[in-house]
């Protein structure tokens, strides 16, 4: 599927570390992912899985102190983003790679009208005149379907509802026609009916703009709605990578399987939920072997010795980091 498409963003061996008590610990461990053009890649995981850190690492938005990219490359348009100067990087941010966040209110300046804020991005990155930029801002607000956009252009962020604010953020992100959109839990703070609207809209815009979308979420339901491919993250690494259909029809990693069983569904009865016992190991105490071993029902003695690799599973593009499952399918 994505083989015959160009790769838009290629992450290779990314390792992002945080400083805790004077020592560096990896929060993202040797992560390799690629996003094809016009593809939606969902990164799904629970808190502490490293999914948001991955997005922040791509745009180098990590806190200055106490965090660093320890290894790896992020290839985009023939350049390694981790090697760019801060100045080169800021021309990439918001221009060819844009990002939207969970809480739109904190990402908007409360003292500027939304029109001015969208126009600002356009004048900075594209050097357009103020009048042209405002006209473009209006077009964008209409494009993200803000009702009576002409008058709302001159409203301030606090005059918008949560859902409308997120649309404004999307309009701002689209302002420079980015190649890649990083969306970090963009619908988590929204009500379900609004979430549905925003999800469908993102999908339409992806097609219209020919963007690639990296969609970060903890919600498997949302993943099923929007993703082409899915990377499941656990304790800083990808444990499973598959097309969306393969992941839900044939989940391979015990963590993915368990995650699917913990989610009660609105459309059918769930007999009994099966919680995952235990908790994610803290970054400061990662085990030698498989990070999921202590919670895993398939655990073998060998799981605790060596860190498993991400290897092909049955089906094209399906990969899993679990030797026990791979053994099972072969045998």
């Amino acid at each position, binding site marked *: 599927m994505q083989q015959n498409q160009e790769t838009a963003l290629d992450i290779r061996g990314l390792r992002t570390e945080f400083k805790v008590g004077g020592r560096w610990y990896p929060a993202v461990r040797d992560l390799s992912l690629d996003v094809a053009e016009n593809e939606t890649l969902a990164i799904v995981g*629970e*808190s502490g899985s490293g999914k948001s850190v991955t997005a922040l690492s791509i745009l180098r938005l990590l806190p200055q102190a106490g965090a660093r990219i320890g290894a790896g490359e992020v290839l985009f348009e023939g350049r390694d983003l981790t090697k760019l100067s801060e100045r080169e990087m800021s021309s990439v941010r918001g221009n060819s790679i844009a990002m939207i966040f969970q809480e739109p209110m904190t990402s908007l300046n409360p003292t500027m009208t939304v029109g001015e804020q969208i126009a600002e991005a356009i004048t900075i990155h594209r050097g357009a005149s103020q009048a042209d930029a405002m006209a473009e801002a209006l077009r964008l607000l209409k494009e993200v379907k803000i*009702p009576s956009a002409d008058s709302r252009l001159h409203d301030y962020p606090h005059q918008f*509802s949560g*859902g*409308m604010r997120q649309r404004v953020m999307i309009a701002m992100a689209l302002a420079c026609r980015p190649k890649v959109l990083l969306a970090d839990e963009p619908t988590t703070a929204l*009500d*379900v*009916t*609004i*979430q*549905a*609207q925003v*999800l*469908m809209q993102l999908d339409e815009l992806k097609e219209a703009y020919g963007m690639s979308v990296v969609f970060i979420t*903890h*919600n*498997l*339901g*949302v*993943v*099923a*709605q929007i*993703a082409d491919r899915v990377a499941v993250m656990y304790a800083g690494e990808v444990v499973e990578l598959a097309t*969306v*259909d393969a992941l*839900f029809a044939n989940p391979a990693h015990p963590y993915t399987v*368990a*995650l*699917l069983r*913990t*989610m*009660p*569904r*609105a*459309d059918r*009865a*769930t007999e009994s*939920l*099966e*919680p*995952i016992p235990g*908790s994610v190991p803290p970054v400061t105490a990662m085990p030698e072997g498989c990070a999921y071993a202590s919670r895993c029902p398939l655990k073998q003695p060998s799981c605790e010795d060596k860190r498993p690799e991400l290897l092909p599973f049955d089906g094209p593009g399906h990969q899993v980091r679990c030797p026990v499952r791979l053994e099972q399918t072969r045998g």
Partner: protein
Amino acid sequence: MTAGNGALEVRNLAKHFTIGGGLFGPEKKLVRAVNDVSFTVPKGTSLGLVGESGCGKSTVARSLLRLIEPDAGSVVFDGIDVRAAKGAALRQLRRRMQIVFQDPYSSLNPRRTIQQALEEPLRVHRLGTAREIAEKIETAITEVGLPKQALDRYPHEFSGGQRQRIGIARALVLDPELIVADEPVSALDVSVQAQILRVLERLRDKRGLSFLFVSHDLGVVRHFCERVCVMYLGRIVEQGVTAEVFDRPLHPYTKLLRDSSPVPDPTARLTLTKIMGEVPSAANPPPGCTFHPRCVRAAGPCMTDIPALNEHDRGRQAACYHPETWPGLQAVAAAG
């Protein structure tokens, strides 16, 4: 009807807030946060209260415990009028009805150890000797699946899920009969959410607790609650057995809510041709059925008259002039 049967009966509950006013503020406005809300929670059962933010579900939850004083209606628990209770009677009621909050980071006093937090209610209510209190606390903490060593620690030493367990243990020490759970798993990761739901299920079965379970997550409500009330802009628009309500919703809003809830199945992608608009402000609700501006079925009286919550099928109630029709469900004409 109001015999001491352990049930919670709520009739025509209403709560209004005023916003604005003041010398230089905007014009004073009456916000009807909760309007004419009635439901019953029989002993040992769970009733879900679902809706989107601002629909008034949390206000209902807090009004029942009089953490917010309701303006009208009656709340009767086990034959006792909650709204009229004063002094010792109110304290006694508060012992029997407890609340679990959404945010595990805000629901525990950061300066008190878990031991202190759990002891305090028993001390205040003078329930038992020091030894009995110690035993009760140990029972409560183990019942929610935490080790006894947890008692000596402070809230910040625990994860969100663990804090939520502590919040539940605190609600349990007084041996309540009814628990009002206000989005108790919304702030948690799914795997932790399942753990907490397990704990609550176990308590319900073991202690025969009743639950009023407030949530925006239809999946969680479907899993935990036998019956459900769907709220929209301060009113109950539909109620009935949870599985029936979600499988064959009568009210178009219930259907919209269900169809918007993402399910982990890529073959069941959202096929909503259009979801119209957003929830209007409660300060300025539309006339007639408050859902009509977003409703594809709106016609005739919807624009002018507020529909009553009428029985449409056995045990199924909906406030709609043009309810959805489903095979097997008797189509009831717009009941005035």
